[in-house]
């Protein structure tokens, strides 16, 4: 099982309503995945050299204020921290390597983990049903340009916050996954030899690192998706978020479901149609099922035409 939902707003006037449009989509997918819930939201882009980091603590009463004074001394005197339940959004002006080095030293002893790093992206994820998790983080009131969410029914690794989707691959890119990979262990070893660092046993993290390394090596997202069709074995519907769009890829056998819809104002994906049923003017939207083994890609609210990939099935 597992449920995927994604909403990209083409009409900027709807951005103030992103959370209230997106939350019901996520809640509709509760039955597909009640174990853990997560969502990535793209909003309030940071201007260079600022970076947005979302941190997570297992303790909802963690002293973020204390941490912020410590980090101000090390990283940036103007650093801003905005706690949200057991997550905290940090806005910091520094270069990424200093940031990584300092956080790697400091965070493990405090039991903190990095959930996302980027200029646009914020990821919030926790164990629990969509209803409780969305409520904890106040999803309904969030604004932004696009959001992608995941409701997990765990099948192959532990139900933990770290094992919840989305998996961020850095650089404002992240991944959610419905399905299970069958060659993830072999692929994990090969990615480790290429420099990937893993934090969980989760198969989706392997896919996330795979895309990250491909993109780092200079592949376009479309090229990375096309090569994934040959390199990743198993069942999957992937939804990948980028700073200005999103992408969808289904395995060649189409084991896992997906329904897409596009209107003048938005593009949306759901594991099932009911996730899309309450979107504004859905009655006039174009609705279709994405073809297996065909990458679908939107950038700046425009659909990007992709090459024929049928040879990969």
């Amino acid at each position, binding site marked *: 099982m597992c449920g995927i939902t994604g909403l990209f707003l083409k009409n900027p006037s709807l951005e103030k309503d992103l959370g209230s449009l997106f939350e019901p989509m996520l809640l509709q997918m509760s039955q597909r995945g009640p174990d853990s819930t997560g969502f990535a939201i793209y909003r309030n882009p940071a201007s260079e050299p600022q970076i947005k980091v979302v941190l997570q603590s297992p303790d909802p009463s963690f002293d973020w204020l204390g941490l912020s004074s410590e980090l101000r001394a090390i990283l940036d005197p103007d650093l801003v921290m905005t706690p949200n339940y057991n997550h905290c959004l940090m806005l910091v002006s520094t270069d990424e390597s200093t940031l990584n080095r300092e956080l790697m030293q400091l965070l493990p002893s405090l039991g903190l983990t990095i959930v996302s790093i980027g200029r646009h992206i914020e990821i919030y994820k926790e164990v629990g049903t969509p209803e409780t998790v969305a409520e904890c983080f106040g999803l309904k009131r969030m604004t932004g340009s696009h959001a992608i969410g995941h409701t997990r029914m765990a099948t192959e690794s532990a139900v933990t916050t770290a094992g919840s989707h989305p998996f961020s691959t850095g650089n404002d890119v992240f991944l959610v996954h419905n399905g299970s990979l069958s060659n993830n262990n072999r692929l994990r070893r090969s990615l480790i030899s290429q420099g990937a660092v893993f934090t969980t046993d989760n198969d989706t993290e392997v896919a996330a690192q795979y895309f990250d390394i491909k993109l780092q090596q200079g592949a376009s997202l479309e090229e990375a998706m096309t090569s994934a069709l040959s390199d990743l074995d198993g069942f999957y519907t992937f939804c990948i978020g980028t700073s200005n769009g999103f992408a969808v890829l289904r395995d060649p*056998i*189409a084991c896992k*479901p997906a*329904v897409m819809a596009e209107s003048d104002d938005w593009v949306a994906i759901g594991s*099932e*149609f*009911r*996730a*899309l*049923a*309450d979107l504004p003017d859905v009655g006039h939207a174009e*609705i*279709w*099922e994405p073809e*297996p083994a065909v990458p679908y890609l939107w950038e700046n609210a425009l659909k990007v035409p992709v090459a024929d990939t*049928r040879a990969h*099935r």
Partner: protein
Amino acid sequence: MEQVFDLATIPLRELNQALHDCLPDASKSVWRIINPKGEHAVACGVDTPADIEIRGHVGYYCAGMNKQAHVIIHGNAGTGVAENMMSGTVRVKGNASQSAGATGHGGLLVIEGNVAARCGISLKGLNIVVCGSVGHMSGFMAQKGTLIVCGDAGYALGDSIYEADIFLKGKVDELGADCMEKNMTEEHLTFLATLLETAEVTDDPASFRRYGSARSLYNFEIDDADAHT
């Protein structure tokens, strides 16, 4: 008298219970279902002579196990529409997702749009008419019944098929294992014409090609006996 069920206000179980409360030998009843909003199992397991009209898109297994009823879906249908239907008719005005008409035993399923993968998988006697195209592995292991496709078919059409018939008007990506093109006799043309007419589809029967089992996969060959010892 027509009964209207608004699924925005009435729970789905109440609707299905009301349908199940109608006896198989009851006189004909008429139902209109509005606001299905992609709910699963709408009008499942009906066994009564009813006319059921559904206004909107439905989720999984709509009209599954249908007996006797005539169901029309004015919208798209999710996975497994009319799965294992026994008799009656189911008509989808939009598109259908995967496994449409899977394991169907009897009756008629008409889909006016396109259908995704595995249409008519393990068919057991149901007749399916698709006005658009079907996805890959359609007619997989189909034992009995008919799959008529007015558009194209994805790869592995009729893979491991038994004695069901496939009539295809458009092109096929690739035939599945043990599926071959077969002669279209007068008898087949007449059968196809009747079925198309019943389905209210106007395509010319002569424009279809017929596919079926090469019967080499499911027959025991005495020359292969050594492989089984």
